[in-house]
């Protein structure tokens, strides 16, 4: 009976979990900037969750180093359905300046399905918010498809 309400709510309350897969911290700072007074993503319901169990959207930054790969995959696996995976910055998809290094296992899309890719080094907060909003739409879609 709450089906409609739940679908509606899924689009309005996406909680983020942020994974740093060897990032230079540029994207990480920028993700935090998204939540600051100037851009305030919380008005769209975004919130940083402390544990992957509570997250809807996983934000991955960094070029997926060999050390981080199994951890990233395990953490993504531990996020309950419906979930969205957003890569932030150029690194997770292309490797950026780290490309070709012996210790880089990227891109992430080799291992899991990536829903949204926000490119840029680093992407502007506006772009990040746009990407996250897109992910929210996908999330809502996934919820709708779950039976």
């Amino acid at each position, binding site marked *: *009976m*709450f*089906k409609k*309400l*739940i679908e509606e709510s899924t689009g309005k309350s996406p909680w983020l979990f942020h*994974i740093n897969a060897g990032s230079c911290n540029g994207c990480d700072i920028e993700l935090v900037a998204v939540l600051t007074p100037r851009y305030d993503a919380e008005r769209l319901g975004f919130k940083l969750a402390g*544990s*992957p*169990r509570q997250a809807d959207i996983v934000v991955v930054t960094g070029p997926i180093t060999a050390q*981080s790969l*199994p*951890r*990233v*995959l*395990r*953490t993504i*696996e*531990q996020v309950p*359905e419906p979930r969205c995976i957003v890569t932030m910055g150029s690194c997770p998809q292309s490797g950026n300046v780290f490309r070709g290094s012996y210790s880089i296992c990227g891109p992430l899309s080799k291992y899991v399905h990536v829903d949204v890719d926000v490119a840029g080094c680093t992407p502007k907060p506006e772009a990040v918010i746009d990407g996250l909003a897109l992910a929210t739409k996908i999330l809502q879609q996934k919820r709708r498809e*779950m*039976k």
Partner: protein
Amino acid sequence: MSFLSYQHFPIFTIMLYFLGAFLIVVFGKAKALRHAVAFLCTAGPLALLISLIGRVMVHGEIISYWMGNRTPVGDYAIGIALEVDALSLFFGLLVATAVFVACLYSFRYMERDHNVPQYYTLYLMLAGGVMGLVLSGDLFNMFIMVEILTFAAVALTAFRNKVTGALEAAFKYLVVGSIGSTCILAGTIILYAQARTLNLAQLAAVIPGNFGVSTKLAFALLFIGFCTKAFIVPFHPLAADAHGAAPASVSVLISGVLTKSGIYGIIRLVFFLFQTMNLGTMQFWLVFLGSVSMFVCVTMALAQHDFKRLLAFHSISQIGYVLTAVGLATGLGISAGLYHAMNHTLFKGLLFLAAGAVLHETGTTDLGKLGGLAKKMPHTAALFLIGAASISGIPPFNGFASKWLIYQATYQKAAETGNIGFALVTVIALVTSTLTLASFVKVTQSVFFGQMPEECKNAKEVPFGMRFAMGILALLCILTGLFPGLVTRYLTEPAAKAAFAAGNYINAMMGQGYAERIMGAAAPGAPAVSFASSGVWSPLSWLLLLMIALLAICVVALSGKYDKVSVRSSKEVEKKYQLFYGGETQSFSQVGGGDLFWGFKHNWRHYFSFMHDLHSGIVNDYSLWAVVALALAIVYALIVL
């Protein structure tokens, strides 16, 4: 007087235990026979005492029984007497229940030990000793019974002499316990020198009002003697050692029964023999001792890392509640104290049996080595949780009912006397209760929940016999919590009234009119005792509400219209169902008992380290405490009484 008349029941009760002890020595080699004898000799006394409830509790009859029918001659008691009033019967019922249940438990629990017949002999001796103590009407017999029970308890403590600390605990207990027994003997004999009688009733008529120096000395000696048996504060390390080392079924007896015998002795002493409870200082000292016991022991318990030792410290903490409530000397106070004494026997018995079950399956009670047992032993865990909720005073279990009465009683006393000190006692009692909760959260987390270490993988549920015994106690915990009105009406209030009716006690024993004749106008009859409390609590309706609410919520939750996503769990190791470790693979990591409550312990670190140093484990120190306590008691008695 026919042979099967109810007047014989008290002596049968005591004799059945000793008879059982004897029969097991003779026929104990055969297991079935041994168990049959033990069962009959523990169930029999319980049945006999239950059959007396109607007469003694409801109709207020006092059963006096003279051995060999040697009734007093010319106002002079020469025979040995048993006297059962509501107070004695109340404690007798506690003893019989605990003994019976722990006996059922030990059938399976003691299977793997050597020398099991000796165990049952000692066990029944201990039971008989305590029963004799509470039913006796004779001071010297009380001493004999104290010696018997101390002996049996010492021997049982050392029974598993391969266990670390068992011998040590037994020796310390023997030394300090003997000091206590000697105090009781010396006090008894000094009283005899004054009154030329050993009969409790006659002493109670003669002693009050004529205090000489020797009488006061006797009071101090007897008081300290019974404090040793109740393990009140300067004697608490012994209890901790003894409970920790003894087999669980014996710990039930030591904590649930032996301490009660001490409390019983104190009540008899201050309410009957010397009738000093109307003195403000006496009330102050009892309440003070009780409050110190409950607070010191609960903090000691928080610092423990052994399951049984932790429970042992909690025993003394709960005895502190009982003593505090009894020391208020109000109807509500004594009723609350006795209620709590009963509840303590039930829930502490349950907890010790649960600890025994854990020991039985895993071979250890170290909180740091256990964890996650709720998966392997679900029934034990559930029963333990009932016990833990009871002792922490979570409504609607029985611990809450009695603690709630104790809070009311202390605060009411404070309001009546205008003494803010009693309000402080209420505060200490409530804080102690929360600390108790904290330490049981610690046990729950580090034994039954959390992660399971490799060593515990082989644990399985304990045999039905053991669970059945625990189940009886758990059921009693719930019932006495749900029907506090019935318990107070039929058990604790008659007993509390009896505590005030020393005149009736004397007359029942020595013949009508004796108390008035000897004590003159001062004879305390049966005063009107008020049990009114200023609060309201009806557990049944609360529980009903909770059940309905829970049911409604569960129905909504399970109807599942909104939630098509099923709860899945897979047997094979899958990443998804591993615990979140910041991305690492799941590995064993348990937040152990010692790591919990850092925020609290850090603030109290000086206190904790002081207490740790104080409990040095050297028997000389503990004896010194006993001697100092004795000296203080003597000084108090000589100056104030």
